């Protein structure tokens, strides 16, 4: 569901020219209908288009050791982060362009059941790779668990409304190990990409995770994409054992398989017709 709001009719059109940290956030609501119900766990993605997260210098603009909880890097981030390394002589935590441009829309999903908006529980943990969350990303170490104290001496990224230690209320999802942050930091390969936002778990076996019907999406519109012709989307998807839904692989396999079969037959005929005459039909490999 595209909610960029480029079209004037879109409810989010008003928010098109928001800046990073406009307060109060521009909010809009988009209603949509699910044709089919989602039986298994549903993954909720946000998708961005035309966003070159794979730009060479953008990709490099991070300090992995800072994110790994290295205290010295925390206060003295890597040069790669320039020009998002320091702000007003204070080191930025997390530094770099990637962190700076973190997606900060808030999406909330409601099911409209007879005009009543039933909020759907969105689980925000478990969306990042386990290894990222537990090994690659770590909060700075120090005495006490007070993140505020640990991040003392650093400043928030320029575009962020609040510092890194205030990303979430739960301590195990705050700071560098905030999963939204981790997901964002895993830079996408292609300019059109999606990133996992929330999980919707199936509650019981009797009813589908998301029934077919009307839904509404509440958006706290913070993230400006209009300047570069970007698009924002919200995607709901289930996942099979093979990962996300993409028909390409299946089609490709079928095509290639039939071509191979056809060629096999042709070659067999050729082999029978000419092979014996040559005495050398048998080709290596």
């Amino acid at each position, binding site marked *: 569901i595209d909610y960029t709001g480029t079209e004037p009719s879109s409810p989010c059109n008003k928010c098109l020219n928001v800046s990073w940290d406009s307060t109060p956030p521009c909010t809009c609501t988009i209603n949509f209908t699910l044709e089919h119900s989602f039986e298994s766990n549903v993954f909720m993605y946000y998708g961005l288009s035309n966003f070159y997260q794979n730009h060479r210098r953008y990709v490099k603009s991070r300090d992995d050791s800072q994110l*790994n909880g290295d205290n010295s890097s925390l206060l003295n981030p890597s040069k790669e982060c320039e020009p998002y390394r320091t702000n007003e002589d204070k080191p930025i935590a997390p530094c770099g362009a990637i962190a700076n441009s973190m997606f900060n829309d808030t999406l909330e999903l409601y099911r409209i059941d007879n005009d009543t908006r039933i909020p759907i529980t969105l689980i925000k943990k478990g969306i990042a790779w386990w290894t990222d969350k537990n090994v690659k990303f770590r909060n700075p170490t120090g005495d006490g668990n007070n993140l505020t104290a640990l991040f003392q001496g650093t400043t928030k990224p320029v575009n962020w409304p609040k510092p890194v230690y205030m990303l979430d209320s739960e301590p195990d999802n705050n700071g560098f190990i905030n999963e939204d942050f981790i997901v964002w930091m895993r*830079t996408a390969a292609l300019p059109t990409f999606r990133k996992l936002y929330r999980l919707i778990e199936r509650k019981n076996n009797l009813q589908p995770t998301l029934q077919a019907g009307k839904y509404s999406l509440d958006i706290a519109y913070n993230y400006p994409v209009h300047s570069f012709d970007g698009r924002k989307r919200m995607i709901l998807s289930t996942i099979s054992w093979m990962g996300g839904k993409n028909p390409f692989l299946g089609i490709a396999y079928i095509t290639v398989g039939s071509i191979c079969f056809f060629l096999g037959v042709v070659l067999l005929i050729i082999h029978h017709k000419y092979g014996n005459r040559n005495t050398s039909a048998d080709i290596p490999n």
Partner: protein
Amino acid sequence: MSGAMADPIRWARYRWQRLVSTEGGEGSSSSNSSNKCYQSSKTIGKHRIVIPCLGHFKEEYEKVSKLYMNNKIRTTKYTLLNFLPRNLFEQFHRVANLYFLFLVVLNWVPVVEAFQKEITMLPLVAVLTIIAVKDGLEDYSKYKMDKQINNLLTKVYSRKEKKYIDECWKNVNVGDFIRLSRNEIIPADMVLLYSSDLDGICYVETAGLDGETNLKQRQVVRGYSEQVSEIDPEKFSSRIECESPNNDLSRFQGFVEHSNKDRVGLSKENLLLRGCTVRNTEAVVGIVVYAGHETKAMLNNSGPHYKRSKLERKVNTDILWCVLLLILMCLTGAIGHGIWLSRYSEIPFFNIPEPDGKSIPPTLAGFNMFWTMIILLQVLIPISLYVSIEIVKLGQIYLIQNDTDFYHEKTDSTIQCRALNIAEDLGQIQYIFSDKTGTLTENKMVFRRCSIAGQEYCHEENAKRLESYQELDSEDEDSTEHHCGSSTHMSKWQGHNRRAVNELLNRKSLNQLSGSYPALGREDGTGDVPHSGHVAFSSPIETDVVPDTQLLEKFSQISCHSYQQSEEASSKLSLETMYIADFFLALAICNTVVVSVPNQPRQKMRHSSLGRIPIKSLDEIRQMFQRLSVRRLSSSPLPSVKESSSESPNSFVSKLSIFRMKLASPALDGAAQRAAEPHSTDSPENSQVPQELDMLNVAAGCKHSSAVSPPIELSPLPKLCYEAESPDEAALVHAARAYKCILQSRTPDQVTVDFAGQGSLTFQLLHILPFDSVRKRMSVVVRHPVSNKVVVYTKGADSVMMDLLRTASEVGTNNSEIEQKIKKRTQKHLDDYARRGLRTLCIAKKVMSDAEYAEWLNHHFLAETSIDNREELLLESAIRLESELTLLGATGIEDRLQEGVSDTIQALRKAGIKIWMLTGDKRETAVNIAYACKLLEPDDRIFTLSEDSYSQSRDASALMMSKILEGIQKNSSAKKKPCQKLGNVSASPSSQAPEFSAGLVIDGRTLEHVLHDSLQNIFLELTEKCRAVVCCRATPLQKSVLVRLVRNKLKAMTLAVGDGANDVSMIQVADTGVGISGQEGMQAVMASDFAISQFRHLRKLLLVHGHWCYTRLTNMVLYFFYKNVAYVNLLFWYQFFCGFSGTSMTDYWILILFNLLFTSVPPIIYGVLDKDVSAEILMQLPQLYMMSQKSVAYLPSTFWITLLDAFYQSLVCFFVPYFTYYGSDIDIFSFGNPINTAALFIILFHLLIECKSVTWIHTVVIVGSILFYFVFALAFGATHNPPSNPYWIMEKHMTDPVFYLVCLLTTCIALLPRYLLRVLQGTLFPSPVLRAKHLDRLTPEEQREAIKRWKDDCIVNCRVEFQATSGSSSTATGPVSEEESIASVLPTSKTPFQACSRDGFGEDNSFSPDVQDESGIQMA
């Protein structure tokens, strides 16, 4: 750019290395100046003064000699300290490395940096390290060598101890006195001051220097030779002044200044060169004048040469294409980036602004991006290709050198690859220029026939004996003895004893090998080992000559009567016998053969066993002679042969005693009697047998230490060994010996000949006019001991000799008529000999009166002493002497063809190689040899361009050639038609089989005209039409000009093969020079790129190794291009999706290591080991060679097709994962991982498709590479040090089925076209190579069958086609162009099976039934 420039720079580097290595000695290693500069700085002016390091000279000595080098040598380039900087310095002379360095530096520029700075250095460091290690190892082995040489011991005079003490070589200084004994190696260049030889002669063997195994004489400095006692260094008070060190081996000038200011000149005759070995001389003393690196040997030491192969040049042009491609891609990136940037009106927040907050303008960004892209896509230029090629070549050379087929037992030599980088050129040879003597032939001269006084003696027994040699193909004296001795009952022998003999032979030759090879070691200073072990011309096949019965008969008459009658010379019979006697005397005397005797211990043993007086050495005999100062001596130590003749010689004693010669010992009488007696009493045949045995035993003694006592107890004559400068001379001397005219000894002024029965005749040697190529003859002037007259014996080429003979008008005697008759008949015989391919020599003599001689001597002396145009005067003087000669006779010497020469030539011919024979011999001989080795065939039409066929003017030559050409064209035009109809005209002229067989014989003088610019083209056109060209009477210069002509004008790959110094220029000019390490020394080998021991080895070298090396290397090079393009393009495609920002979707480490580690070993293995066809098949089907000759494997189209394929594969490899992951939450490195993995599979499996033979090594390497990649990726992903971005990605992917599916699908789609292509090609349009490969799989029987069928089918097909297309004669065949179908990847011909390739030469199939015809086989 890198490729083209690499050439001169590499060359410069090589030159520089050479300079450094020759000059870099102790203390001067830092001086990098050139040789010249260094010399002038180190020596005083142009001369050096050598002063002995002795008491009264001490001060001066130190002043002078400290500037000279000592004898320590250091051939290494590096020391431990300077290794790193110097090696790096040298390596950066390579453009490829500079390019890499440039990239590294570029990466440090922040604006354009693409990778982490350190990572870019990795490939460079890897390449540098590999090369450095290689250089280091090479240098280390040199260092060890040097150390060994430096620590050899020699005897140096020590002032302190007043005697000679052992010293290491490295401690020898200029001015030291050195005493050497026999068989010791000379440690430094020194002036000979004393020799134990009474004549002041020292014999040296220069094998270590130039490979010539014959002995050379060196003379003690004049004024010292008279001294009887050994020189006392203490008393030596002279100073030596000589020229500065230079590398001219044949020049040495200087003088000795005695304390009384007398000066004595020094020449090269006085100089003993480092590296030579003292032979046959008990002890010598010399004073060192040059030491260490200043010795001539060291100055002459040149490193391996650098040639550039054709393939390499081609690779360089293709690299240029790659550069172009790279620039194109980078430009795309730059422009794309600019456009992409300009699309945004304001800075998007994923584009990082400059620190000042502003974005750089798109154009500048685009410009920066260009450089970034160059860094990113750098692998497109396969830098590792150079390293890989070098490694592969090393591997190939290693394989060639270890091919046991190249081992030649007799010479214990195998192939030597002296040039490391042109092995693949062997696969593309189109022209072979071959020397005749020693290359095609064995250069083992065998005396075959002679004509004396117009009477021919054809030595049939000798011929028989030679045949028996050929049959047995092995040389052992005992068996030969049996064979020859019982030549009448040969058949019986051959019947049942053959096996036994062979066994014996094998065993004995083994013994012989084991016995004599230690002697080859240069360190044997003991003298225990028979020196004859390394005398070149000593195989019995040459040394044994079975005398002609008839001649022997006549000759034995001389023994009895001639000397009574010779003075009158009245009767015809005695005239003839006199001729005979003179003839053999001339054979024995007119040469420069050095006589030597094998070492004593063996002789002692032998003699004591026979109860004889031990002979110490020939020197002693000679000394004894001299002391007694008699001319004719009974050679009492000479053993007699009385055992063989049981009859008592009493009856003859009285008869013999009337000889006017001074007495002969009874023993000798016995010998003479024995020679004469059977003749008078018995049939000649009977007499011959024991004599033969006798003679053979002489030879046996010469060679063999472990001679089993023969069935009949024979007394050995002293085991004389003749060491001649040329094998002809040796052959003649051996022939003379067979007639009991034995050359006993030779000193500078005397020659002793044991003449038949009459004992030793000692001739006073008045003069030797040595052989030179202008006069083509040599003469000796002797005083005849009997008649006391001055006699001139001349021996030379018949062409010059015939003009020098006395003509009838000049001499009015009654003899003149006879002489004319003799001349006529001899000429006839000479022509006959030449027709038989024998080398002919004329022997003539002239008797001079003392007055005449004195007059001539006067003139000659004047000529010798004159300073201006001395050469001319000497020549004039020689001509004056060599005139009005009386012809004695002529000899025919056979130079036997080497084993397998004709087979080899035929095979090479079938392989589409044109063979030219360039020889200095006369036309008839050359043509005959050409016929013998099947270079020309009986039904060939031979066109002869020579001075006698028409006038010598250039115009005439032109006319002649155009006429011939016309004739050929006319002849062939009719026959060409069918071929053209079939579209069978091949592109390359070299592979074009001539339409009909024509041979061109051209002669040296005509060649001169022909090589003139105006005629070159027509000449080449003519030669292209001919299937064989024989150039006779060609000078070395002409040879090289010819080679250069063909090489430059026809743009053909040339190979020159030769064995002698006269072939050196030709070998150097040709693309590939092959030296045959044969009889004529090492010069050819030193100049060559490959040195083989036998001509027939050329067959395997070219057909098998050439083919392999070429196909392997081309395929590897193509694969490298493919690999790099395919891989780099993955990155390039990604640029379209990341705003051309230069992002790589794989981690830098994996990116860099991908080329360096994961995919580097398999292609190298492929390049070294791939065998498209097995060696046997390649040998059997020489036609397969044409494939590589036409460089089918590496046509420009092949290159582009490979690149296209690479593009396709990279597209597939990128877009299959792209579509798979499109729109998903995949991150960069997770996206890159399947791409990278799929690329790895594609690239490795592509190799597997291309690979013609998959061995376990291939499997291991490929599987290893894949495993290594995964292990590395897993391990790398598991490390969580911060910069590791692809953290855990591999692990994650390994559990993801999509990953596998993607990899599988990508690999399949990517490889499908190429696989399909190969399958179709193999099934529908198989190349000859493929079909030949198929033959490999059959069982031997099937294989034979198939090859036979192949041939038969071809013949049938050819016939059918001939009949169908034209009624022309069966001699016309079309050229082969079957290969064209392989050249084009998708053959256009829809009926490929009709293309019958016919062999251009095999028209007479019954003639060569064992060789198959062209590859156009059809198995119906």
